[in-house]
C-alpha cells in the first residue's frame, strides 16, 4: 500500500501540472453537470460562449499572477497589485475619456507609469531593506486612495471604441487558426531540440513514446481551445495578450540570465550575492515587471468595463497570489512556474464563473474559494512529501 502511494506521489510531483489539469476537469465536469438543463439544450457551463467568458474573466488575474510568480519565487510578496491595477486603469480612463488622448499615447503613459511605480516599490524593498510585505501593504492603501482622489469616487465613462477592443475584442477565426498552427509547430520543434540537447549531455529524458504522447495531448488542447473559441466569436484579445505573456515569461524564467537569477535569489539570497550577482537589482527588476503587468491588467480592466471605476481591481492581489500558490509556487521562494500560476488562475475563474451561474450567494463563493486555496496547497504539500 505504501508503494502505490509513493508511486502516486512521484507521479504527481513530477507532473504537477497534470494533477492541476485533472482538478480543472473535475471542476468543469461538476459545474457542467449542475448546470445541465434539457430545455435549454444541454449544459450551460460547458458552452463555447461561457468558455470564452471564463477565459476573459481569468485574463486579468492571469496577467497579475504571471508576474506575481516571479515576485514570490524571488522570496517577496506584492499586496499592492489590485490597487495599482485600479490606479493605472483609472489613469487610462481619465486620459481616454476626459482628455481624448490617442490610444497609443494612453497605453505608453500607463505602461511607463506602471514600470516606474513597480521599480519604486522594488527600490524601497531591495535597496532600502523595507520588507516587501510592508511596502506593498502601504502601497495598497496609497494607490487605492489615489484612485479615489483621481476619479472623485465616480465612474469615468464611456471609454473610446479603440480602447474597448483591448478588453472586448476578438481575433478573426482565420488568424486564430494560423497562430495556433504556428504555436504548435514551434512547440514541437523546441521539444525535439531540447530533447536532443539533453540526450547529448547525459541528462535524463522521457521515453520517445511519452514525448510524442505529451505533444499530441498539447496539440489536442490547442486545437480544442481554438475550435471552441472560434465557434463562438474567436479568441478574445485579452486572452491572446495573456498567452503571449505566458510565452515570453516562460522564456524569461527558463532561458534568460535574469530568470535564472530570480530563482537563485529566492533559493539562497546570500549565496547568490556572494557569487557576484547584483541581487538588489534582480529584486527591483522583478517588481518593475510586476508594475508592467499591473499596467496591462489595468488597461484591460478599463477596456473591458468600458469605464474607469474606483473599485477596479479590488481584491485582485489575493486572487493573483492564490493562483500562484494553487499553481505550485513555493511560499519559501525558489520554486514556481508561470504556466502553473495560469492554471491556478483558470481554477479560480472556473469557481467564480460556475458558482455565479448556479446562483450561489457571494458569501458562499468566498468561503468555497478560501477552502479550495487551502486544500490545493495542502494537496501540494502531501504529494511532495513535505509534511512535518
Amino acid at each position, binding site marked *: 500500500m505504501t508503494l502505490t502511494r509513493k508511486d502516486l506521489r512521484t507521479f504527481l510531483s513530477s507532473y504537477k501540472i497534470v494533477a492541476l489539469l485533472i482538478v480543472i476537469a473535475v471542476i468543469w465536469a461538476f459545474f457542467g453537470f449542475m448546470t445541465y438543463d434539457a430545455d435549454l439544450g444541454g449544459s450551460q457551463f460547458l458552452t463555447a460562449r461561457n468558455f470564452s467568458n471564463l477565459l476573459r474573466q481569468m485574463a486579468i488575474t492571469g496577467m497579475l499572477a504571471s508576474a506575481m510568480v516571479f515576485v514570490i519565487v524571488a522570496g517577496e510578496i506584492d499586496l499592492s497589485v489590485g490597487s495599482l491595477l485600479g490606479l493605472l486603469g483609472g489613469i487610462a480612463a481619465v486620459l481616454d475619456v476626459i482628455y481624448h488622448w490617442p490610444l497609443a499615447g494612453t497605453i505608453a503613459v500607463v505602461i511607463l507609469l506602471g514600470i516606474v511605480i513597480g521599480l519604486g516599490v522594488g527600490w524601497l524593498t531591495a535597496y532600502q531593506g523595507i520588507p516587501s510585505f510592508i511596502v506593498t501593504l502601504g502601497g495598497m492603501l496609497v494607490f487605492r486612495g489615489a484612485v479615489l482622489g483621481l476619479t472623485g469616487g465616480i465612474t469615468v465613462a464611456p471609454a473610446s471604441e479603440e480602447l474597448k477592443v483591448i478588453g472586448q475584442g476578438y481575433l478573426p477565426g482565420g488568424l486564430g487558426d494560423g497562430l495556433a498552427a504556428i504555436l504548435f509547430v514551434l512547440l514541437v520543434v523546441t521539444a525535439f531540440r*531540447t530533447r536532443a*540537447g539533453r540526450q*547529448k*549531455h*547525459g*541528462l*535524463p529524458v522521457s521515453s520517445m513514446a511519452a514525448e510524442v504522447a505529451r505533444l499530441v495531448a498539447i496539440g489536442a488542447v490547442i486545437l480544442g481551445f481554438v475550435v471552441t473559441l472560434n465557434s463562438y466569436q474567436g479568441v478574445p484579445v485579452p486572452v491572446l495578450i495573456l498567452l503571449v505573456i505566458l510565452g515570453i515569461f516562460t*522564456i524569461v524564467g527558463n*532561458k*534568460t*540570465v535574469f530568470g*535564472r*537569477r530570480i*530563482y*537563485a535569489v529566492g*533559493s*539562497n539570497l*546570500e*549565496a*547568490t*550575492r*556572494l*557569487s*557576484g*550577482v*547584483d541581487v538588489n537589482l534582480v529584486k527591483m527588476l522583478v517588481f518593475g515587471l510586476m508594475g508592467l503587468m499591473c499596467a496591462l491588467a489595468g488597461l484591460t480592466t478599463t477596456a473591458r468595463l468600458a469605464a474607469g471605476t474606483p473599485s477596479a481591481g479590488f481584491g485582485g492581489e489575493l486572487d493573483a497570489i492564490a493562483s500562484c500558490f494553487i499553481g505550485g509556487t513555493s511560499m519559501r521562494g*525558489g*520554486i514556481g512556474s508561470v504556466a502553473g500560476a495560469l492554471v491556478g488562475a483558470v481554477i479560480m475563474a472556473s469557481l467564480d464563473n460556475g458558482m455565479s451561474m448556479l446562483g450561489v450567494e457571494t458569501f458562499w463563493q468566498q468561503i468555497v474559494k478560501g477552502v479550495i486555496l487551502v486544500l490545493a496547497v495542502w494537496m501540494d504539500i502531501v504529494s511532495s512529501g513535505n509534511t512535518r
Partner: protein
Amino acid sequence: MADYLLEMRGITKEFSGVKAIDGIDLKVRPGECVGLCGENGAGKSTLMKVLSAVYPPGSWTGTILWEGAELKARNIRETEEAGIVIIHQELMMVPHLSVAENIFLGSEPTTFGGLIDYDAMNARAAELMIQLKMPDINVALPVMAYSGGKQQLIEIAKALNKNAKLLILDEPTSALTSSETRTLLDLVAEFKARGMACVYISHKLDEVAEIADTVTVIRDGTHVATHPMAELTTDKIITMMVGREMKNLFPREDHDIGEVIFEARNVTVWDTTNTERKLVDDVSFTLRRGEILGVAGLVGAGRTELASHLFGCWRGEHTGAILLDGKEVRVHSPLQAVRQGICMVPEDRKRHGIVPLMGVGHNITLSVLRNYTRFGLIDAEDEMAVIRNEIDRMRIKTAQPLLPIASLSGGNQQKAVVAKMLLPGPRVLILDEPTRGVDVGAKYEIYKLIFELAKQGVAVLMISSELPEVLGISDRVLVMGEGRLRGDFPNTGLSQEQILAAALGKQTRDAA
C-alpha cells in the same frame, strides 16, 4: 544482561532504489566510546538517522537491539526517552532563548499553576554548567551571547539533562577552537568513566584516536572493519576509509612566486551589532603572483571578517584600502570584487555557498552565466559544455549534471562551489576553510587544485583552522589573534607550536 548496550545488525536503507547504507553493523558496549569513521557520503549520518528514528522503523531493514531488546522507537522523542541522544553537527539552538530555556526546551519544569518554574530551571541549568566546567556561563542570557564552541557544550548539557545512556556526537568539534575541543574531549572521557557510552563521529582522526576504544570504519555505505583503537593508527584508519593508501596528504608542487599583485592596507572591521568592537584591527599584508598565503588563528581571530572586507561583503563598518597591481580599487560588493578578479569561496557552504534548489551545473555557472548567452537567451549548448567540463575537471561525483546540489555529499558540493568561483578567472582567490566538512579524498583533490592554480599564477589566500593544512599548503603564513596580525612567517621550518604561540599572542610580531 546483554554484552552490548546497542547492537545494530545488517542495517540497510534505500533512497529511491539506491542503497545509502548496505548491511552495516555497529555495536557499543556500556561505557565504551566507538569512533565512527568514513568519508563524507559514506553513510554515517544515514546510519545515525536510522538509529534516532529520523527514518522510522519500516523505512529500513535490519535490527536494532537496545539493552538486549528490540528498539521500537518511532520518532526522536522516543529514542531520547530510551536514552539515545544525538548532538548534531549543526547546532540546534533557538538563538533568542536563554541558555536554560534551550536546555529545557520541550521538558520545561512547571509550577503548580502550569507556569514555567524559572527558578528551578535556572538552578538546574547552572548545576549542569558546573558539571561541564563552565561555571562562568550565565544561564539566563540568550544562547546567541556565547560562541559556537560554548553553544556546542550547552548542547551537551541538554543531553545530560535528558539522562542519556548513549551520546552520539556528530562532528562535534568542527566549529570549536582547540581549547574548546580540549574541554569537550575531557568531558567525553569523564562521561565514559561514569559509564555513559558514546559514538564519536569525526574527520579529525587525532581526536578519534584519543577518545575511542573501538573504531568502526564504513565506506560507500558498507561496513569495512571494526577494530580496537589499540590495534590501529590514524594512517590505518585513513587507508580503510579511502580504500587505498594515502601516502602524501599534501601533494606539494613547485610553483614560481612572482611580484606583489595584491595588497591590503590598514584593514579595520567593526562588529555589526556591537559597533564599538573591532573584529579586525589595522591589518596590512601583501600577496604575490602564484603565492599561497595561509591565514591561521583561533576561531574569532577575525580571519573571516578580514576576508569579507576584501570581497566587499561585510555588512558593518569597515575601512582599509585594497590595491591590485599597486593601484587602489573599489570593492564595495562581491560583484565589484569578482569583476576586479578577486573571488572568494565562503566558509559556510550551506548558507553562503550553494543555491540548494538549483542543479549542480546551474550552481557552477551562476557567476558567469552572462557569458553563455546569445541574443539575451542562455545558450543551453554552451552552458552544458562548460558544466560538463567543470564537473570532469573538479571530479565532482554526481549522477547527472543538473541534479539538485543539495543531494550531493559535502565534498562534492564544495568542489562545485570552488568551480563556480574559478570560472570568472580570478587573479586572487580567497578560500575560507576550503576543506571544512570535506572528506579525505576530496581534500586531496582541493589541495591539488590549489597548487595547480598557484602554478598558473593565481594568488591564493587560504584561511584554515587546521594547522597541518596551513603548514602543508602555504608558502607563507599570516597569524591572526583578536583581530590583529600577530605574525607573518615564511613557511620554512615553521611548526604548529610557533603558530599557536603567535596566535595566542605569546610572541612579538616577526618581521619577515
